[in-house]
């Protein structure tokens, strides 16, 4: 079912229709510090074992190039931007470790939800619906535009929340801390501009 309920607590109400959360490691929500520590340990493994830093937005930019190369192959072949990423001689490929990491993130989240017997489908989030109404078209349009802006910014900055925010910050990179602070401030300002302080009454605090 969709999240078209009137109550701002609609999302949670829909989730709880699947019954109580299992206990232990199958619990629907883990302690955020535990999850953070898990991601930290995962970063040790990617650095030490794979020689890589966790990141995701490069793969999404390359996917644009892949689609572009199906439509206008010469244009992509001549592009100075894609040339940095599509370069077999330099060991840089489209379908590389990071592409499969991103693909598997989808599956990992799906497995996590299924294992804890949670049902969740969301078209229009309750907070959005409170402010902008139940229209799926409007929400999808905003999500699309948000996605365009998001990835444009990520590529300009040289990374996203994973590549800069986590992997870069833990390396104490100057670039990453500049990105992290800037994106956080811009996110707060934008969210307050969209929803106002009253919006705080329509998100569930945990």
């Amino acid at each position, binding site marked *: 079912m969709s999240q078209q309920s009137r109550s701002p607590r609609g999302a949670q109400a829909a989730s709880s229709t699947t019954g109580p959360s299992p206990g232990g490691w199958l619990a629907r929500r883990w302690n955020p510090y535990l999850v*953070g520590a898990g991601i930290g340990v995962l970063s040790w493994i990617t650095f030490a074992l794979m020689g890589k*830093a966790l990141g995701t937005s490069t793969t*999404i930019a390359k996917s*644009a190039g892949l689609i572009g190369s199906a439509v206008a192959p010469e244009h992509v072949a001549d592009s100075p931007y894609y040339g940095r990423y599509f370069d077999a001689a330099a060991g840089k490929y489209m379908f590389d470790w990071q592409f499969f990491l991103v693909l598997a*993130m989808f599956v990992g989240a799906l497995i996590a939800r299924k294992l804890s017997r949670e049902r969740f489908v969301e078209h229009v989030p309750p907070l959005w619906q409170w402010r902008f109404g139940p229209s799926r078209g409007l929400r999808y349009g905003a*999500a699309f535009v948000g996605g*365009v802006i998001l990835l444009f910014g990520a590529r300009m900055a*040289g990374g996203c929340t994973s590549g800069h925010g986590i992997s870069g910050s*833990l390396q104490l990179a100057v670039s990453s801390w500049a990105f992290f602070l800037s994106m956080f401030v811009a996110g707060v300002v934008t969210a*307050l501009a969209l929803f106002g302080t009253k919006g705080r009454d329509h998100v569930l605090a945990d």
Partner: protein
Amino acid sequence: MSWLIDPNVRMIIYGLLAGLVFGFLLQKAKVTRYQVILGQFLLKDFTVLKVMLTAIIVGAVGIWGMQAMGAGFPLHVKGATLLANVAGGAIFGIGMAILGYCPGTGVAAAGDGSRHAVVGILGMIVGGGIYAEVYPQIEDGLLKAWSVTVGGSNKVTLAELSGVSPWWYIAGLVVIAAAVFLVLERWERGRAATA
């Protein structure tokens, strides 16, 4: 199109396994939920900050610890071109507040059942395509502005920039995070008691 498929199968398998774990963890913290990301930007629900700061600290202790013990793996510090880092970060923050996800949590959210996240991912791909077209125009200007270099390289850490041991920064981070977490937990308990 020799650049299509990486012949290194071992790396692809590692990538798959790391992605499964990463997506699983993001869903368990519920940072795959629009409510939680917007709750952070509206300064109501601090789950995102708790997850990120803990990941940064645990990650930093392990990475710098292994480096200190002589593990020779490469670091991946991104170039400090501060105008692009800050302007790109601001654009990113605006997009993230509108979409409600970042690229990684967006992909995981799609797996978690968010349909609007799927539309957001399509938007991200278009945004990546637009950036590739703009790139030649900003390559030599904006992307090189406010460059911070140490010894001729802009892949600079705070430790290199200040000439101080990275462990001072890590210790500082631990102290700041511990204080922030204590205040947050107390504030959240107080709020729960009055609710």
